[in-house]
């Protein structure tokens, strides 16, 4: 990330030029298979000698408990909800992502700020504020977007984890039951992701393909990003 930049008003106390590693974000809506693919990518990169850390939405030490509490107590006004996610993101950014990038790691982010953009937009029809809030986020070196249609997604989620309150956007009361609400909410999210895919030039991967095909495509996007990035241990065995 030699020419790393921030989306908006950045962290005044961090200099982006210090960030040597690569930041790769995997985006896509709930249940699309992001975490499975991130696991496979991590394995693949580590075998090649790259240092890898993964970071995921709401997984910060500071906020994961708070967000659970908030969701359980239904603190769902649009601003608090988005700000809770932003705090979680900032905590992970400053304690995990930036230190890792400084040390030259490849950071695989399971969701990035675009998820927050999509969710806030669906709740407010306003794009400006949430983008200002996340102004301190570094622009990733690569964004891969796992795209799926809502019909396939619905079937897949029912077969695996089942539909839950938040993934169905039940706080928005979009439909009379979980299934209707899920489809409407996820359609809105996908629609917004599709728009952002053009605006922010995501690399779109069809998530309906087989896992092997998806992995190959993802690797195809990631390799060029890493080419000018020297792994800690080169394939020939020489130290760095």
């Amino acid at each position, binding site marked *: 990330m030699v020419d790393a930049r921030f989306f*908006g*008003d*950045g*962290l*005044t*106390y961090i200099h982006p030029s210090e960030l040597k590693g690569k930041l790769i974000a995997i985006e896509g809506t709930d249940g699309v298979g992001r975490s499975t693919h991130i696991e496979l990518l991590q394995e693949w990169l580590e075998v090649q000698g790259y240092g890898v850390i993964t970071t995921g939405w709401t997984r910060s*030490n*500071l*906020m994961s*408990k*708070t967000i659970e*509490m*908030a969701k359980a*107590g239904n*603190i769902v*006004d*649009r*601003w*608090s909800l988005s*700000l*809770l996610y*932003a*705090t979680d993101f*900032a*905590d992970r950014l*400053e*304690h995990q992502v930036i230190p890792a990038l400084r040390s030259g790691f490849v950071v695989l982010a399971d969701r990035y700020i675009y998820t927050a953009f999509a969710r806030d937009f669906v*709740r*407010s*029809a*306003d794009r*400006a*504020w949430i983008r*200002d*809030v996340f*102004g*301190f986020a570094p622009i990733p070196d690569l964004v891969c977007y796992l795209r799926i249609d809502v019909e396939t997604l619905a079937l897949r989620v029912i077969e695996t984890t089942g539909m839950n309150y938040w993934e169905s956007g039940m706080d928005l009361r979009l439909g009379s039951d979980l299934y209707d609400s899920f489809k409407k909410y996820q359609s809105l999210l996908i629609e917004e992701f599709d728009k952002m895919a053009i605006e922010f030039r995501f690399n779109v991967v069809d998530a309906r393909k087989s896992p092997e095909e998806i992995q190959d495509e993802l690797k195809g996007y990631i390799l060029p990003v890493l080419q000018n990035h020297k792994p800690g241990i080169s394939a020939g065995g020489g130290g760095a």
Partner: protein
Amino acid sequence: MSEPHSTTTAPHPYPGKLIIVEGIDGSGKSTQLQLLHKWLESKGYKVFFTEWNSSELVKETTKRGKKSKSLTPTTFSLLHATDFASRLYHHILPPLKAGMIVLADRYMYTAFARDVVRGVSAEWVRKLYAFAITPDMAFYFKVPIEVAISRLLRGTRGQFKYYEAGMDMNLSPDLTQSFQIFQSRILTEYDKIVDEFGLLTMDATQDIETQQELMRTLVSDTLRGYKPKRGIYGRRTLFWRRFDVHTSE
């Protein structure tokens, strides 16, 4: 749920009135607001009081972050914005919509001053609070740092709190000295904010009564034309009920 407030300068559309006070610790702003509260109630107004950093959810989190010393200027700022957002939504907007007078001890300007001193971008923190509504009246209690320190040391609190003194910023190992440096920087930020947002500056070195008299005069002007909504079981009714105990029951 929606109603996006894209600007922080447009007046709010609600029938109630929002009056806020700002100033550093020891400026006497809370005392003045309490006295104003008493006076407004005695006039028969329905008043709702709210203060900075009061929600349980955020208190818990801040405590956790302080314990592990993992709060950064950005997460500190975001946590307070979260708290403010939920307070705005749950405590400030409903009484304003109901036509009440809302008194807020500290408002977003506290974040604009404190968070910037801690190191976040001034533009960013202003954008963060773009959802906030503009108060009808905003008082800034201006006080020299020495006066604030002597008040706090003489007063009931006796000692400075760790974060109020900015001890996390390693300005000085001495609590009083750290407070002085940290709060002086905050005063500098407040001076900019007063001009930028047109806060009403009060000379907080004056007597309590003198300040309160001026505050009440200014508030009276703003409230001219405002129609208070009284509930049947409002405070005034309670007051009169004390005098006719025999007729009840």
